[in-house]
């Protein structure tokens, strides 16, 4: 390494680049694992959201039926 923190040879540059790329890949994999988990949880929530919307819709319909203006 030079005083500026850069490798002296092209092989050194390559090695450092590859190490950085490997680290980048590890981080992306961690991110991917979390993305996958989010996707899986979203899927679980999707059903509950659909149920909640249906209930809310039914309640609104009932509300309109029972309101004095109807």
């Amino acid at each position, binding site marked *: 390494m030079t005083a500026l923190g850069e490798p002296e040879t092209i092989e050194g540059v390559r090695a450092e*680049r590859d190490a*950085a*790329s*490997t680290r*980048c*890949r590890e981080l*992306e*994999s961690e*991110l*991917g*694992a979390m*993305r*996958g*988990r989010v*996707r*899986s949880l979203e*899927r679980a929530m999707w*059903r509950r959201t*659909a*149920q909640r919307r*249906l*209930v809310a819709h039914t309640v609104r319909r009932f509300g309109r039926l*029972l309101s004095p203006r109807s």
Partner: protein
Amino acid sequence: MSAPRFSVVTPVHDPPPDLLEACIGSVLSQTLGAWEWCVADDGSRSPAVISRLRSLAEDPRVRLLTHERSSGIVAASNSALSLATGEWIVLLDHDDCLELHALAAVAEAIDAGPDIDYLYTDEDKLAPDGSPYGELLKPDWSPERLRTQNYCTHLSVLRRAIVTDVGGFREGFDGRQDHDLILRVTERARRVHHVPEILYHWCVTPGSAAGDPAAKPHAQALGVRTIGDHLDRVGIDAEVQLTDNPGNFRVVRRVEDPPTVSVIVPTAGTSRAVWGIDRPLIYRCLDSLCSVTEYPSMEVVVVLDPKTRGRVVTEIERWRRQDVASRIVVAAGDEFNFSRRINLGAAHASGELLVLLNDDVLVEQRDWLTRMVGFTAEPDVGIVGCRLLYADGTLQHGGILCNEQPLHIFHGFAGDEPGPFGLLQIDREVSAVTAACLLTPRRVFDEMGGLPEHFAVAFNDLEYCLRVRDSGRRVIWTPQATLFHFESQSRGRDVSTDEVDELYRRWGQQLRHDPYGNPQFAPYQAEWVPRWRADTSLGIRRRLRTLLYVADPVQRASELTPSVIAARPRHRPRRRPRRRSRR
């Protein structure tokens, strides 16, 4: 008296009395009358069970045979089989329930298809409180999946002549006897049919295989033997391996005489940053393909876009000089047409097998090609696809499901996501796979006239797969080969409305109803979601019906048939008198 049409076969060995009662109720209440029930009591010790079976035997439709001592499920099942006189054998476990119209629905399907020799239906599980879960909504006949998972199981209805012909249940396969019998019968069946309706309920008890397949560890080892024997019979040279998911197996084909494979890679030399390094994707693809792949006879045909930068062309030329077996072809014309480039590459390829590969694919698995090639030894396999992952390891391709529209199964989930019933870990038939990595025999490719050139950018792979399937061949997706595909996760497909219109005009019916999906799936969902999970009102009705059914099946048999339920007026809450406001 003429023989009944259906012989329900049930081996009994000390089931919980309440579940036996539910089982009895579900058979006695069948809406179809043409059945007999062949029961073999395998040395039950419970006085309640013995007494109930004795009273049951008073019914003229029930034939009871009693073993003094327990001799195992295979011997008991064969005893019950020996009592059968019907044309069809219906397999029922002593603690499970049939849907009340199960036999009627099966009879209707058989009437419509006189050449059917084996039939199976969808199934679910019932928790001890009677609530349904674990719905197994099955595909139509999927032989590759049956090799890796006994997905047919219940309700299985088999032509008795074939069951007799194959010798009934095999001794020594206790715990795996159903899978073994189904494999042997389907090897001889003229036609296998699927009724896409839940007609069978597994009642889960602690220690039962329904609750936990690992509860019967000996069945796993037997599974390897069962599938191994089947492979020997059908002439597939392969090794059967266990997977992490109990009940699922991996069939690894041996490739003794590897055919030449031509890998066709069209490229324009595009660059993209992958794992922090921005360089032309084709470099990474070719480097990994040639240095990682362990396959004795492979050539690479690179189809270059005329606009490819000179530096990239020089680099590819340098690479080619190291690999003399490979070729570089320059495509003509400015207009991009993926199909035309693949067809051009195929014209210059000499292999018996072709692999269509995108230039943004990276190989890290040494035996990926051998695993894929293994399937092509079977003449009815037209296409093999593999698992593709994004750079971050999430799933890009797990096969295509046509569910109103073509969808990538479990797209964006974790790469190691097993999926329901471990479906993303097993080989199985699918409607289509992506051409980002697709293996097809040369003869099939030529017979189909190559990739359809009227689809320049999108859907050419889909149409090719549908055409191959139309020709009676199978499209296999396998997780045994996993590659990286650096397709942008955020970019949508460059699809023109003309291409979409053309696709639906040609293949509308196939895109809406996938034989490897299920009509009970919620539409537009790529994760095999039952439609009652997406529609609450359906879900509540289903749960209520099953609860009532399990609570007292005999009592409610007459009033709970589906037609009665459908016709019954919906419950309307009484309107309460409106309260006066206090103000």
